[in-house]
């Protein structure tokens, strides 16, 4: 799990660097700071399980086992990217590893994840679906419709709310009167749990229980992970709406730093072993960047392909 979290962080730092060098078209929404959520959840999943993702989706892709080379190539708009340059940062999918795609319409992935759960039930397999979304999405109608349907049909879906406190610049307290999104689970008659989303072991445990419950055919769970994005909402956002003290406090709670310290304190890994993992990951990310930068752009007329099967 440390390797995956470090991989996501290193990947996002590289994306930011490339962005600063004007190599990334469009916009980016970085996952840095929220790594414990994707990794804690996806570490409970099999390759044939599904996930759905959001505009802030690079971390979900990596955690589910997608290849950083092809994610990076997609972000740069290259032909070798997962979507042949048609999707970009906000729309990456890798159906081969069960990553059913990132939707950039907030909350739209919730009914789709529920539908994948319905498909599992009708096909009679023991797969599960993890559906990632932010706290802002929990104010969409799709949240209500999708979770209610999953609940009444006992579908094997784990709804994972990444509560990073802000929907773009809108603080949670300005748009809802409750503190915990997990409380909303009561409306659907399903379990709702709130966990420290910067503690990967806490996320892992909550997800383990939810995944087991889903595989047993007992239905969905709503897990709320309290977390924080290190950067602004997107490329143009300096995030001035966040108090400096708040940012500093959350930076101290950096999920990667915390896990690193824990691994050392509990003697699970020695400093040299951790460094070796970090070096390996750094090499891998450099390779991803090299692959993406050196890959060709798609031919312009490829814009006309893939509209219909």
């Amino acid at each position, binding site marked *: 799990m440390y390797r995956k979290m470090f991989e996501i962080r290193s990947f996002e730092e590289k994306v930011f660097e490339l962005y600063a060098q004007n190599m990334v078209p469009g916009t980016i929404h970085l996952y840095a700071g929220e790594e414990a959520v994707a990794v804690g959840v996806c570490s409970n999943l099999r390759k044939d399980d599904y996930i759905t993702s959001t505009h802030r989706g690079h971390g979900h892709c990596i955690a589910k086992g997608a290849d950083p080379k092809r994610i990076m190539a997609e972000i740069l708009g290259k032909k070798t990217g997962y*979507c042949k340059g048609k999707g970009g940062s906000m729309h990456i999918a890798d159906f081969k590893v069960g990553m059913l795609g990132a939707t950039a319409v907030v909350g739209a992935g919730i*009914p789709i994840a529920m*539908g994948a759960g319905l498909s599992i039930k009708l096909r009679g397999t023991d797969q599960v679906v993890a559906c990632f979304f932010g706290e802002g999405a929990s104010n969409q109608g799709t949240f209500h419709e999708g979770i209610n*349907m999953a609940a009444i049909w006992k579908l094997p879906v784990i709804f994972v709310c990444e509560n990073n406190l802000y929907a773009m610049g809108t603080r949670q307290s300005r748009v809802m009167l409750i503190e915990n999104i997990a409380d909303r689970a009561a409306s659907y008659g399903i379990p709702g749990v709130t966990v420290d989303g910067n503690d990967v072991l806490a996320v892992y445990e909550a997800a383990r229980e939810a995944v087991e419950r889903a595989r047993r055919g007992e239905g969905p769970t709503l897990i709320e992970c309290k977390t924080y994005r290190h950067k602004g909402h997107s490329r143009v956002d300096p995030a001035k709406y966040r108090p400096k003290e708040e940012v500093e406090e959350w930076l101290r709670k950096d999920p990667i730093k915390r896990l690193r310290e824990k691994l050392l304190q509990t003697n699970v890994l020695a400093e040299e072993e951790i460094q070796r993992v970090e070096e390996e990951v750094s090499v891998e990310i450099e390779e991803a960047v090299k692959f993406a930068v050196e890959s060709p752009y798609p031919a312009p007329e490829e814009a006309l392909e893939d*509209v*219909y*099967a």
Partner: protein
Amino acid sequence: MRKITYREALREALREEMRRDPTVFLLGEDIGRYWGGAFKVTEGLAEEFGDERVRDTPISESAIIGAAVGAAITGMRPVAEIMFGDLTALAVDQIANQAAKIRYMFGGQAKVPLVIRTPFGAGVNIAAHHSQSLEAWYMHVPGLYVAVPSTPYDAKGLLKTAIRNDNPVFFCEHKLLYPIEGEVPEEEYTVPLGVADVKREGEDVTVVATLYMVHKALEAAEKLETEGISVEVVDPRTLTPLDKQTIIKSVKKTGRLVVVSEDCKTAGVSAEIAAVVAEEAIDYLDAPIKRVAEPDTPIPFSPPLEQYVIPNEKSIIKAVREVV
């Protein structure tokens, strides 16, 4: 040949495809054993296939389509029913941004084999929220196919094709067509997407019409024949893909075009068909193109108001007389 209704033809298509392919399933509000669908299209199917495959849903249009999308990209072939066409507005994100775009924006990785069945059309005094015709909205979305069958034969054949197709198909039905009877063979057949049908041959003017308006156009053609005007009625059967060639071929023969569509005139179905002919066959026209469509209003309730806005035999006859 035996005659069955449009409703029965649709039900037969669903039944046959569900028997043929276990991945086909239905979902929608009150489509199951307790009601059989608001227009009774799915009546009896829950009894044969069970409640899992003929699935009643909560009143959640967006999640109905979302469920269909999620199931379609993971190996199923859902057929979702939205009770009235107007209510598809509640699910437009799932239809237009998700179902239609998923294949493209993920670079062709996914197939999205789903069908959305819904009735459009006015004429039964149920006012603005249950009567509109919105086919043109969905013609404007790349990645969707749009079917508009006007007869029991076309309804059955097109629905079977739509279910077997690997793309999302927006399948428009019409409330007034459900009880209409027509010849439907007992044996297996399908109707391809993108192939128009000449419902009546003629020499003097081409009338392109869809759904219920095909029948109005045919009635108008009968009357006009007694005046010595020979009308060719072309039914596109699908709006996406649109069989431009059959329409243009007919216009080349007659030199005159009237387009009839039961939707608002502005940016409607008739606008697109008129534009295609203007762009690709204007040199063959001997008169300006005429459009017969609804005025740009919501559908009113009171019978005289409603009848005033719906195109009918008389408005079609008037338009034809103006061009010949």
